[in-house]
């Protein structure tokens, strides 16, 4: 390589050394709604709570709201009959009257065929209204209101 080309390489990497950290930091700080820590998928061992309190039947999935016998725990059970056609689908629980996705609680993620169970917080402010949201296309795919 020529001296000029070496110099150009060094200039490019000096520029990257500044721009990459700045852009990454801006991205990290800019996320308004940091996602929950831990896995969005529930552990496979999650067992179903005994009572089904509400049910919704859709073409590609069935959704149950389950609770424990003493009603102290609530669980969302999502049964996918086939892989979702929106693979980037997240379930949100609507928080009060909040109609925007930002600010609502992320419950979990669904993808392939199977049963997904997510424990819900016992919070009176939260409704039994759930959104299925495509994070790639930034659009609500479905809305489930028990």
């Amino acid at each position, binding site marked *: 390589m*020529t001296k000029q*080309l070496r110099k150009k390489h060094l200039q490019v990497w000096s520029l990257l050394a500044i721009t990459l950290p700045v852009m990454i930091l801006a*991205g990290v700080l800019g996320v308004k709604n940091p996602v929950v820590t831990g896995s969005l998928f529930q552990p496979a061992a999650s067992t179903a709570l005994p009572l089904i309190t509400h049910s919704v039947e859709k073409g590609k999935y069935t959704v149950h709201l389950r609770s424990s016998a003493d009603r102290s725990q609530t669980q969302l059970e999502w049964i996918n009959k086939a892989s979702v056609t929106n693979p980037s689908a997240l379930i949100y629980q609507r928080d009060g009257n909040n109609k925007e996705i930002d600010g609502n609680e992320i419950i979990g993620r669904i993808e392939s065929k199977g049963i997904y169970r997510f424990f819900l917080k016992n919070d009176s402010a939260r409704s039994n209204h759930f959104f299925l949201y495509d994070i790639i*296309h930034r659009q609500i795919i479905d809305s489930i209101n028990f």
Partner: protein
Amino acid sequence: MGTSYQAVGWNRQKKYYDWVLFGFCLLYLGIFIVLTTVFNAQYSFETLLIRASSTLAVLLLHVILAIGPLSRINPAFLPLLYNRRHLGVTMFMLAAVHGIFSILQFHGLGTVNPLVSLFTSNVNYNSVSAFPFQALGFLALVIFFLMAITSHDFWLRNLSPKFWKTLHMFVYLAYFLIVMHVMLGIIQYETNPVLVGMVAVGTCTLISLHLLAGKKEVKKDQVKFRPAEEGFVSVCDVSDIEESRAKIFCIGQERIAVYRQGNLLYAIHNVCKHQGGPLGEGRIIDGCITCPWHGYQYLPANGQSPPPFKEKVNTYEVKLEGNRVWLNPRPFSEGTPQKGANIT
């Protein structure tokens, strides 16, 4: 080489390099798929493939970009440089698998053209946190595609080395796009901070290596040589140059490689005619100076590629006074024979 657009034949080293690369890719994909199946059984096969190919492509991209500075910091890494373009093409193919499956999975099932959907389904282009990171990956893939299809010597010859080099400098833009694609994707969509940490460590390592190697080169280029009689400058002691190896000196704007072959010293221009590789970082194999990048060869005594090849580089006059090596930085025409300096 030049006459048939084939750089070098499939020699033993190249075959070995490619088999190791192939084996590593298979091993990585196998381990990734098995571990994900065990620990994240909910992922569909498409998601598994998208993730396995993308993580391997990002890993290979970091290795590719690290080989250059590592070789300048420590010559022990030079063998990795030899077949780097196969590494690059492999990385592109993995990135293409990731890209094609991602487009099909995320955009192929709607009523809109998948490519249109890629750029228009999320239009938060004015937001860093919600930026459509997939578009960044697609643009990087286009750059890798152009680099991969022009990596053959046919295109190098027809596009000219200068144009080709300019095109390949876009790898740095592609790297920027890839890091942002991965980081924004992770930030927006993932929960595991380990992934952010891994990409950050990779990026920091790469930047540090390049800055370190770059500064080393600048230091080398800034050495002031004492002017002497008849245009010769004193460059080093003869013992500084290993047998069949060279030392590179930057005098004025030009880099010159002084090679030692047996009891003789020769000097040639440091820039390979093929892709501008650093001839002084190579070594003499079968009596020829061999470029570390792609194996182009030149005879030390006249800077000419052995017949039937026609590449030629400038040669320079070297002399010895005691143990001191003197070099005349005034170039002779490409391919001009030199008698060399005799080490007595």
